[in-house]
């Protein structure tokens, strides 16, 4: 089951079982994303610094397969870790992370995620060989991108 184990790495299974960043506040701006083929759902919010320049955390709620849920949890974890290290993302930085994430996941295994930049979320590299699951892993990141675009537009 080596192929399968590269998809369901322990980090992913753990995050799916015990997800981080779960919990939205009534009334906050969210993006809701749905994967109609299997019913995965993510509703996600970006929490901004007081000056509105940086993203201090990512919060979400959802239901669905372990890949979609773990990916949202790993995105929230990465945001929290970078913020704690004094590197809270600007919109431009988050967009470039999303772009890199998408490129890696669409690479069919050719371009793994950079562990320096993605931390534990780099475990999602294994998804890129499972074309049918890329959409699951992208769901939370697409929600984040939707919020960035709304803000810019």
């Amino acid at each position, binding site marked *: 089951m080596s192929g399968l184990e590269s998809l369901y790495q322990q980090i992913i299974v753990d995050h799916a079982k015990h997800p981080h960043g779960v919990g939205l506040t009534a009334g906050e701006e969210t993006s809701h994303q749905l994967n109609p083929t299997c019913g995965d759902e993510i509703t996600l919010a970006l929490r901004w610094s007081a000056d509105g320049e940086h993203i201090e955390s990512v919060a979400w709620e959802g239901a669905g*397969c372990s890949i979609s849920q773990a990916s949202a949890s790993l995105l929230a974890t990465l945001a929290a870790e970078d913020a704690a290290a004094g590197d809270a993302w600007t919109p431009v930085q988050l967009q470039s992370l999303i772009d890199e994430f998408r490129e890696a996941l669409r690479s069919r295994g050719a371009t793994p995620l950079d562990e320096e930049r993605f931390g534990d979320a780099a475990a999602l590299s294994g998804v890129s060989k499972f074309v049918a699951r890329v959409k699951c892993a992208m769901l939370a990141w697409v929600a984040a991108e939707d919020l960035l675009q709304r803000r810019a537009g």
Partner: protein
Amino acid sequence: MTAAPLTAAPLTDGEIAAIRAQFPILGREVNGHPLVYLDSAATAQKPLRVLDAERAYYEHENAAVHRGAHTLAAEATELYEDARRTIAAFLAVDENEVVFTGNATEGINLIATAIGIASSRRGAGADFSTYALEPGDEILTTELEHHANLIPWQELAARTGATLRYIPVDDNGMLDLDAVPALITARTRVVAVSHVSNVTGFVTPLERIVPLARAVGALVVLDACQAAPHLALHPRALDVDVAVFSGHKLYGPTGIGVLYGRAAVLDALPPHLFGGSAITTVTMEKAHFLPAPQRFEPGTPRIAAAIGLAEAVRFVTEIGLDRIAATEHVLAERLHAALAEIQGIRVLGGSAVPAGERVALASVVVDGVHAHDAGQVLDDQGIAVRVGHHCAQPLHRRLGATASVRLSAGVHTTVAELDRAIEAVAGIRQFFGLEAATTAGGGAS
């Protein structure tokens, strides 16, 4: 009209082996394992003779049908109409009652759209208004329908002001038949039901619904998608007005479906699409339409696919639908008995397999594991199943699931394949670190 008694003998191992040899795709490996294809309810694999029939047509007779006088055009037309005759014989109906569509979805939309057009006072036959709907009229469907037999009726109701009602489903995935008499009233104009559920595999007891619909003069539309590959389909014996199915689920090509319509119904309803080949005289102001079935086949039809489907029908007819049903009953019993023994899973609709009342199909919810993840574990072992809601969200919601893993057998499925799949299902929870499942009774070896 309930399930015909299963008197025929199941296929022997030797016969199944000979059938398997006709399916090139069954020779391939997936993820290092021989393919176990248990997704026939989504689309069936194709025997070589179906592929050959399509190819031979393109190699020897290809031409536009009903539109030319040259030899190829005449031969192509003959083959296309011969395909229609083959389907008509398969259904035991007249050939002018067989309309080729793209798939079952298109067939249901054809009828719903034609009724919608009739409701705006455009008809073809003199008595089209029999089928016109108006506010206060009711369309009755069920809670277990595939979206293809639900959304067209929602739309028709919205366009005509009619009300859409449905027969509810009980906790076991069965239609609540006691509710039916109160739901079918003088206001009921259309009753649209599935012959076999694509989620539970249950055969609908049509004899508890159709006579009531008949008594009030409602048009009865049967979604026979999941019935056609498994049991003899005879719309007249079932006393339905319209029946649809998809060729690709019956070992035929994609892009071809069949709509049976009782002659009087098809002759009254207006076309749903407009164009060439469906008309007699056209002026700049007006067109006169051909009788059915041409009226409902405007444009160049799916000639090669229809010829391929006719070959698929000959394939199942030669095996015998009665023997297919008997064989699948053995598989269905084995599948459901083994699944019932696996801890930590739930089979939608339970495990009972009354003879002739359930096809060889099971949808499973694995506790603590999303269907998508469960299906991935099976795929890793070369086992192809369907994951998701199988286009039946209301039924899944009713049964308390968002998604399930569906295993569905075909005419080539062996007991050994089924056992491999059952064992794989039993191992899913363990893979995700949940408590090990046990199979009692030695169903999986």
